[in-house]
């Protein structure tokens, strides 16, 4: 207890978030093991994990770097396709290879290729900021999924063959195994495990590491430099912070994590196809809603919003038609409330009240 008090505030917060995640994980695992969790809920556990990763990684760009990215789903698309491609190709070429080698490789390569795309996008937007940056990331995201929608891949006689045309690869032998088929995408991807509990455990482990990484990143020297760019670009530049470098680092890291989420996504669904609704800017905006609702810049907020917005639509089936409408109202409402001096002063007063309540409790404890 005494150690808890001497900790830095950021460290304490980090421990609190990670511990909370572990406890939630434990509860869910017990619920699965005792079969009290409905099938419907069980199917939501892994989506919850990849949504958390997506929200936390977008929060790095929107909340920490302070630039609006509308192409986050594009990086997820890269991860989903490359990860699925790796695990399918390895499955065809080396059928005896253990899953414990295939899947980590899929995650690693999926994430790395997404990071390369992130680097490309990062270079494109070096000179841009604000609205122009947002529209270019949107354009980049759209270009990415469109490219995957015309990609064909197959394994023929132990060789991998690609075609970036609108038609299938010419001259395939009859024994060739088709991997990706253009707009139909990739199907028959092996699940991480057939057991829901194990699947959730793997997904949770990845999410846990990602959140830990992101929290450490935000509170590191690099993270503080990135935040200084967000708060005042000119001031940051004038004290010698290399803003180009820190912008690139953040965007690449964010893309890498989105790629990881994509790999998780493709292995959970088993079938992916490059479509506007799944990987286009509609999805990017859905992720943005997580971040905005959770509070831009707050990792814990992003996690909570991602979990809530994954679970609630399933519970409130009645409202499903109105889900997107509600998202829209959330986006407008949060922005209007945040920027309304009267309401935000009430919110601040409320926050202070809660804080002082806790402080008094602590003092009372010390007195005892």
């Amino acid at each position, binding site marked *: 207890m005494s150690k808890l008090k001497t900790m830095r505030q950021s460290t304490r917060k980090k421990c609190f978030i990670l511990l909370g995640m572990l406890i939630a994980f434990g509860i869910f695992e017990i619920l699965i093991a005792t079969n009290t969790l409905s099938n419907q809920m069980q199917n939501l556990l892994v989506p919850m994990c990849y949504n958390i990763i997506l929200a936390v990684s977008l929060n790095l760009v*929107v909340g920490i770097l*302070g*630039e*609006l990215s*509308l192409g986050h789903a594009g990086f997820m698309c890269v991860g989903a396709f490359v990860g699925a491609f790796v695990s399918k190709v390895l499955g065809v070429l080396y059928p005896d290879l253990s899953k414990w080698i295939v899947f980590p490789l899929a995650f690693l390569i999926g994430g790395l290729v997404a990071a390369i795309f992130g680097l490309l996008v990062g270079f*494109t937007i070096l*000179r*841009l900021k*604000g*609205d*122009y940056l*947002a*529209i*270019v990331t*949107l*354009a*980049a995201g*759209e*270009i990415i999924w*469109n*490219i995957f*929608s*015309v990609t064909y891949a197959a394994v023929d006689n132990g060789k991998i063959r690609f075609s970036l*045309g*609108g*038609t299938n690869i010419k001259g395939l032998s009859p024994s060739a195994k088709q991997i990706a088929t253009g*707009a139909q995408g990739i199907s028959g991807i092996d699940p991480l495990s057939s057991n829901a509990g194990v699947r959730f455990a793997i997904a949770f482990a990845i999410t846990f590491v990602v959140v830990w990484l992101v929290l450490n990143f935000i509170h590191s020297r690099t993270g503080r430099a990135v935040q200084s760019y967000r708060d005042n670009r*000119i001031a940051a530049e004038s004290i010698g912070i290399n803003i180009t470098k820190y912008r690139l680092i953040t965007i690449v890291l964010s893309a890498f994590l989105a790629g990881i989420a994509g790999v998780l996504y493709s292995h959970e669904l088993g079938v992916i196809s490059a479509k506007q609704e799944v990987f286009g800017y509609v999805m990017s*905006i859905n992720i*943005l809603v997580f971040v*905005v609702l959770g509070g*831009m810049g707050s990792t814990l907020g992003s996690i909570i919003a991602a979990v809530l917005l994954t679970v609630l639509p399933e519970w409130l089936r009645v409202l499903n*038609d*109105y889900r*997107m*409408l509600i*998202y*829209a*109202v*959330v*986006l*407008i409402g949060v*922005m*209007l409330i*945040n*920027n*309304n001096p009267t309401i935000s002063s009430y919110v601040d007063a409320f926050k202070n009240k809660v804080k002082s309540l806790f402080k008094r409790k602590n003092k009372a404890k010390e007195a005892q």
Partner: protein
Amino acid sequence: MSFLNTLFNGISLGSMYALIALGYTMVYGIAKMLNFAHGDVIMVGGIVTLEVMQNFVSGMNPIVGALISLLAAVIICTLLGVVIEKIAYKPLRSASSLAVLITAIGVSYFLQNVALLTFGSKKKMISFAFLDKFDIKINEQLTIQGSTVINIVTMVVIMILLMLFIKFTKAGTAMRAVSEDNGAAQLMGINVNGTISLTFAIGSALAGVAGFMFLGSYAAIGAYSGTMPGIKAFTAAVFGGIGSIPGAMIGGLLLGVIENFAKSILANMQLGTLVDPIVFIVLILVLLIKPSGLLGKQVREKV
């Protein structure tokens, strides 16, 4: 002759982009915000046109009916634009551009989903057969379609009227002053909020016209129809130089022609779905090479 055909179709499409780009460029020049919902106002304009044509004016002379529905679309879009500005954008005048952009995305989403719930998820079709009267037959192979003629004429007329308005009226002068420096404009006694509202009203009225043109060219409209033309027209506005009215025209026409040629080339390669990425690549290239656009001013950053 197919070359000329593609060119004329491109110019027709480009005229529509130019008209939409005008809305973006004016709002961006004066309110310094990217009105993401502009594309969806076009969709509303198209839907209003379609509903009025099908339900209210079906018995009339088609040309009179079309004009009435155009008028209805323009009025409703103008009102919509002003209401959006009052409710969503005005409270955020002093907020960060990130907050404004997110709100604009929210408004865009809101309009799409209201349209989806009231209008249905299917695209609705309508025939604009009377436009054939305006066909210009040049020779056996080449006919300029009526919708193309109408699009080009409308765009040119509106462009000239708008330039005259901005140059010679008091409100137009106020607009130029606000876009130059809105603090100084306020000190000179210009009603800045009123001017911004007027800009939104004009931009949205143009979006109503563009909605009508969209329906005339594609003969079908749905809840998501506005997004892509919206983003492409923004590309056109950036291409021509944001804030510049002739720039919007040049950017729109160039982009329309580029898109149509890309479409015919890609269709030969069986890559017809890749038309939109080509437009986006144009956007990225313009922003990489000349972020201020063809006719835009380079703005220096002050500390």
